[in-house]
C-alpha cells in the first residue's frame, strides 16, 4: 500500500500549521474542522495557527519490528509529544542516542524525510523531533 497521493502534499506536515478555535481559543494539531468543545458553534471558525514546534515527551517507544515502509530503518523512536500549545501529536525522535530518550524530555520539531516509496520513486517529508537544548 503506497502512500496516497494526497498525503504527500499535506502542508501541515511541513509547516506545523494546526487550527485555533475561533470560539474558545483552543489549539488543535493535527488540524481539525470542528472544535470538540464548541462543536457547531466552531464550524467555519477554525483558523490556521502555526505551532512553535516545541514540546515535551509524554511517552515513547523504540520500534524494533517496523512496517514494510520503514524496513531497514529500525530501531527508531516514536513518541507521544505534548506541544507547548497544549495539543498532542505522534512523531519520531531523532539525532540522539535512543537510550537518552525519556519521559519529560524537551524536544523541538525539525523537518526530515519520513518515508520513501521505492516503486514510485517518491520521497515523503514531514516533522520529526530532536532534543531541545535550552
Amino acid at each position, binding site marked *: *500500500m*503506497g502512500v*496516497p*497521493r*494526497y*498525503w504527500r502534499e*499535506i502542508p501541515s506536515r511541513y509547516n506545523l500549521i494546526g487550527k485555533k478555535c475561533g470560539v474558545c481559543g483552543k489549539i488543535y494539531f493535527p488540524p*481539525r*474542522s*470542528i*472544535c*470538540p*468543545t464548541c*462543536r*457547531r458553534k*466552531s*464550524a467555519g471558525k477554525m483558523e490556521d495557527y502555526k505551532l512553535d514546534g516545541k514540546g515535551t515527551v509524554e511517552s515513547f517507544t523504540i520500534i524494533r519490528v517496523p512496517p514494510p515502509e520503514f524496513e531497514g530503518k529500525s530501531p527508531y523512536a516514536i513518541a507521544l509529544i505534548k506541544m507547548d500549545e497544549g495539543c498532542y501529536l505522534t512523531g519520531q525522535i531523532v539525532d540522539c542516542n535512543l537510550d537518552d530518550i525519556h519521559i519529560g524530555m524537551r524536544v523541538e520539531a525539525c523537518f526530515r524525510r519520513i518515508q520513501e516509496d521505492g516503486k*514510485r520513486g517518491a520521497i515523503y517529508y514531514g516533522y520529526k523531533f530532536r532534543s531541545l537544548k535550552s
Partner: protein
Amino acid sequence: MRDVAVIGIGMTEFGEIWEKSFRELVAEAGIKAIMDAGIEGEEIDALYIGGMSTGRFIGQEHVGSLAVEVAGLEDLHIPSTRVEAACASGGVAMHQGYLAVASGMYDIVVVGGAEKMTDVVGGEATNILASAADREWEAFFGATFPGLYALMAKYHMHKYGTTQEQLAMVAVKNHYNGSLNPKAQFKRRISVEDVLKSPMVADPLHLLDCSPISDGAAAAVLAPLEIAKKYTDKPIKISASIQATDTLSLHGRKRFDALPAAQHAAKLAYEKADIKPKDVDVAEVHDCFTIAEIIAIEDLGFVEKGKGGKATEEGLTALDGEIPVNTSGGLKAKGHPVGATGVAQINEIVLQLRGEAGERQVKEAEIGLAHNVGGSGGTAVVHILEVI
C-alpha cells in the same frame, strides 16, 4: 416501530477531489448535514457510516471512530458504526440508521457515506472493485466488475432484444441531468454516438456505459417523525427502508436478467409504504453501468421485465418523463464514490421532495425512491421517501 424522517442532508462535490482527504470529505458532508438539520452535536445519539474499501483505497479501516474524531464528538463516546456492502455501503448505512431510530433505540442519528478512490494508481482500482464480487470464483478467473455487468447486459440483449443504443441512452440522459447538477463529476452532455465510439471495456459495455472512479461523501440526519418538525419545516418521511441480499457471485443467482435481491426489496418497500410503482414521482437508481439502470427500472416495477431498454428510448425516465430517473445524473454522471452513493441518492430525493433541486427539479414530486446495489446484486437497498 415509529416513523422516521430525514431532517438534514449534506454532501460534497463528487469527482477527482485531489485537494481534500477522506477525512475532510467526511467532515464537510457531515457538517453540512448537521447545519442543515440545525441540531447540536450533543443531540446526536449514534453515527453510521458506509465505506466500501477504505482499507485498500486509503489504507484506513476503523472509519467509524475516524468519523467521530472529525465531527468532534469524541467526548460523547456515542456508538459509531462503519458498515460495508460494497457499492451499497451507503444504502446499508441508511437502513441501519433508519432501524436505530424506527426501533425507538435512538432519536437523532447521523448517517454518512464516503469513499476516496482516486488516490490509487491505474489498475489498482479495478482490482479493488473486484473485491465487491466473488474473489475466489469470479475475479480469480479474470472476471472484472464491468465484466459481470457485461454478462448481464449480453444476456438481457439476447433475451429481450435490448440494444446498445438503448444502453447508451441511459448514459446520455444521465449526463444531461448531471449537467444541471452543480455537484456532479461530469457536467458535459454526450450523445449516443459518443457512447458507442468510446473504447470498449467489456462487450457490450463501452467506457461511457460505466460510472467513473470518484471521491466524495454524503450525509443525512434522521429523527423520529414526531419530533422532526421541531428541526425543519420540510421533514421528509422515510416510508420504507428495506435491505436484502442474494449470493455474492452472479453465477449463484436464480436469474441473470434481474437482481432478485432488488426485486425482493422493492416488493417489501412498496408494501410497507403502501404505494404502487406508478406512484413514484422521482427515483435514484443504481446505474453503475447503463445496463444496471435498465434492469433496475424493471426490477422496481416501473416497466415490465425486458421493457427497460425500450422505455428508456421512449423517454419514460427522462427529466420530463413519467418517472424521472437519476435526476442527479446518477452514478454515471454525478459520480460514484462507492461508499457515499447510497447516501447521496437520499440527498437527491430529499432535494427533489423539498422542491430544492434547482434546474433539475421534478414538478410536484411527492414520493421518491432510492435503489442502491452492492456488487453484482449481492446486496440491494430500497428506500421510499415522502413529503408529509
